[in-house]
C-alpha cells in the first residue's frame, strides 16, 4: 500500500462521515430526553452524541402507543409475502425454465409484459376490487398485490435455466416424476437464488408505503412504515421528537440488521430488483 492509497481513504472518510451523519443523528436524538429536545437539538456536539442519555423513549414506545402492534403487522405482512412469493415464483420459474409444454412462449411474453406495469398504474382498480370484496384492513390485502408481480418468476427462471440438463436426465432415467425432481433435486440447488428473492421481497414489503396507505385505513392494520408516516406529521407536539426518532430507529432495525448480516445477498437482491423491475 502506498501513500496515495491512504490519502484516498482519508479523503473518502469525509464524505462517508457526512453520509452517515443523518442516521447517527436520528439514533442520537432517540436517546435524549424529550423536554431537552423541545428546547434544543444540539446539546452535545450538535446533538450527534446522546448526552444527556436516556432510554425512556424506547421504554415509552413499548409501553404505550401502537408501535409494537405496527411492528408485528409489518412482520406478518413481510414474512407472509415472502413465503407466498417464494412458493409461486419457484414453481412457475421451474416450469417455464425446464419443462416443455404448449403455449410456453406466449406465457413467458405475457409475464414479461407484467414487468412494465408499475404499482401506481393498478392501485386504483385494486382499491375498488378489494373494497367490493371487503378485503381492506387485513393482512392479506397488503400481501396479495405484490405476489402477482412477476419479478420473482424471472429471477427463478434465469437461475433454473443455468442448471445443467444432465442432473434432470439422470433422475428421469431412474423414473422420478417431474414434481419430485422439482422438490427433491431443483429446490435444494436453488437455495441461493431463493435467498436473494426472499430478501428482495422482505425489503419491499417492509418498506412499501403507497399501497398500505391506500388499503389500511384503520390504525390497527398499519404497517410500521405507514404508522411512522402517520406520526411524523405532528411529531413535535403530540409525541415528542425523541420518541418519534425512537420509532424511526425501531422501524429501521430489522432491515439494517438484515443488511449487515446478509450484505452480499441484500446488494444482489436490490440490484436484481432494480434492474429487472
Amino acid at each position: 500500500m502506498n501513500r496515495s492509497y491512504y490519502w484516498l481513504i482519508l479523503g473518502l472518510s469525509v464524505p462517508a462521515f457526512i453520509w452517515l451523519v443523518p442516521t447517527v443523528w436520528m439514533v442520537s436524538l432517540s436517546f435524549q430526553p424529550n423536554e431537552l429536545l423541545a428546547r434544543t437539538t444540539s446539546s452535545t456536539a450538535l446533538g450527534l452524541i446522546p448526552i444527556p442519555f436516556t432510554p425512556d423513549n424506547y421504554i415509552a414506545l413499548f409501553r404505550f402507543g401502537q408501535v409494537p402492534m405496527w411492528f408485528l403487522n409489518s412482520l406478518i405482512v413481510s414474512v407472509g409475502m415472502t413465503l407466498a412469493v417464494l412458493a409461486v415464483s419457484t414453481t412457475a420459474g421451474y416450469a417455464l425454465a425446464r419443462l416443455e409444454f404448449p403455449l410456453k412462449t406466449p406465457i413467458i411474453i405475457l409475464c414479461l409484459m407484467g414487468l412494465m406495469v408499475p404499482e401506481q398504474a393498478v392501485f386504483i382498480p385494486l382499491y375498488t376490487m378489494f373494497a367490493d370484496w371487503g378485503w381492506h384492513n387485513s393482512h392479506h390485502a397488503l400481501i396479495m398485490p405484490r405476489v402477482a408481480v412477476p419479478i420473482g418468476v424471472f429471477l427463478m427462471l434465469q437461475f433454473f435455466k443455468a442448471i445443467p440438463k444432465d442432473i434432470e436426465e439422470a433422475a428421469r432415467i431412474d423414473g422420478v416424476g417431474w414434481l419430485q425432481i422439482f422438490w427433491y433435486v431443483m429446490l435444494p440447488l436453488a437455495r441461493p437464488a431463493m435467498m436473494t428473492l426472499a430478501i428482495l421481497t422482505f425489503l419491499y414489503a417492509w418498506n412499501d408505503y403507497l399501497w398500505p396507505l391506500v388499503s389500511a385505513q384503520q390504525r390497527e392494520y398499519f404497517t410500521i412504515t405507514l404508522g411512522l408516516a402517520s406520526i411524523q406529521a405532528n411529531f413535535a407536539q403530540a409525541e415528542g421528537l425523541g420518541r418519534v426518532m425512537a420509532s424511526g430507529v425501531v422501524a429501521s432495525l430489522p432491515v439494517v440488521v438484515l443488511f449487515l448480516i446478509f450484505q452480499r445477498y441484500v446488494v444482489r437482491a436490490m440490484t436484481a430488483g432494480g434492474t429487472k423491475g
Partner: protein
Amino acid sequence: MPQHQGARLVLSQGQAAAILLLPFLTIYAVFLVYPFFKGVWISLHDWNLMAVAFNPDAKAYVGLSNYERVMWGSNITWGAWASPAFQFIGLAGVVASAWLYRTGRAGKVTALAMGGAALLLFVLPGFHPGEGGRWYDRRFWPTVGNTILFVGLAVPGVTITAMLLAAALDGETRAKAVLRTLFFLSQVLSVTVVTLIWQIMFSPRQGLIANLTQLFGGSPIVWLTAEGFAMASIVIATIWWSLGIAMILFLAGIQDISKDLYEAGALDNATGAKAFWYITLPNLKRTITLVVVLQIILHFQVFGQSHLMTNGGPNDTTQVLVRYIYQTAFRDSELGRASAMAVFLFVIMGGFSILQFVLGREKDQ
C-alpha cells in the same frame, strides 16, 4: 402398472407444468392483469369513489373525456417558445443525440431513445392556451413538469456521485469494503424513515443544518417551505437515499473493464483522474445508460418524499404526478380522472421499461 409410485409417474410434462404454473398464473391474472384492464375501463367512466361505493350503478361511460379534461383545454395552440427553458433543453437534446450518434459515441438505440425523449420535451411544452383559452385542469401539466424537473435533478445527481464513488471505491481492501457498506446503508431504509430524518435535518428551528448555519453566524433557511429550496431539499434527501444501487452497478461495470487497459495507460502516464477520464469513462458508456434509464423509471414514481416532506408545496412547486393521482382518487374521489392520469403514467413508464429491456438484451449479446 404398480400402484405405489405409478400414480405420480404418469404425469406428463404438460400436466406437471400446468400444476406448477397454476398458482402463479391465477394470482397474476386476478391481481395484475385484470386490475390493469379495469384501470383503463375506469378511466373511460365518470366514476366517483363515494357515489359508486354506495350505488354500483352511479358511474357513466364518458369515452375519452376524462383524458380531455386532464390533458387538454380550450383554445390550445402551439408555439416554439411557449416554455423556453424546457423547449431549449429539448432542442439541445435532439442536436446532442444526433451528434453523439454521428460521432459514434452512442449506439443506435440510445441515440434514438434520447432523441425521441428530447423531441417530446421540445414539442409537448409548446402547447399552451391561446387568447381566452385555458387548461381544463390547471394543475396537471405543471405537476408533470415538476416530476420531470425532479427526475432531471435527481438522476444526474445520483449518477455522477455514484460513478465517482464507485471509481474511488473499486478494490479489495478492508477500508474500501467498509466505506462501500456505509454508502449503501441508507438504501435499505424506508421512505418514511428517510423523510423523517430529512424533515428534521432541514427544520429551521431544530434542524442540524440550521444549527450548523447558526454556529457560523448565518441565519437558517426555511428549506421545506421556501419556493426556491423545497425541490432542492427533496432532491438532496433522494440522492442520499438512493445512491447505493447505482454505485453497485457502476462497481460491477468497472470490474468488467480489462486491467490491461489500465496497465497500458499507466505506461503512458495515465493514472488517477486521467485514467478515469480516458479509460474508465469511455468503457462505462453502457452502464451509464442502464443506470440512467433505471433511475428515470425509479424516480418518475416519486411519491413519499413529496407527500411527507413538503405536502406538494409550497404553492404546488413539489407536487408530483403520483401524488396528484393519489389525491385526485382518494381525496377528491375522482377515480375516472385519476385513472386517466395513471394510464398516462403507465405509457411513459412502459416506454422506459421497453428501452431498459432492449438495453439489457444488447448487453447479453
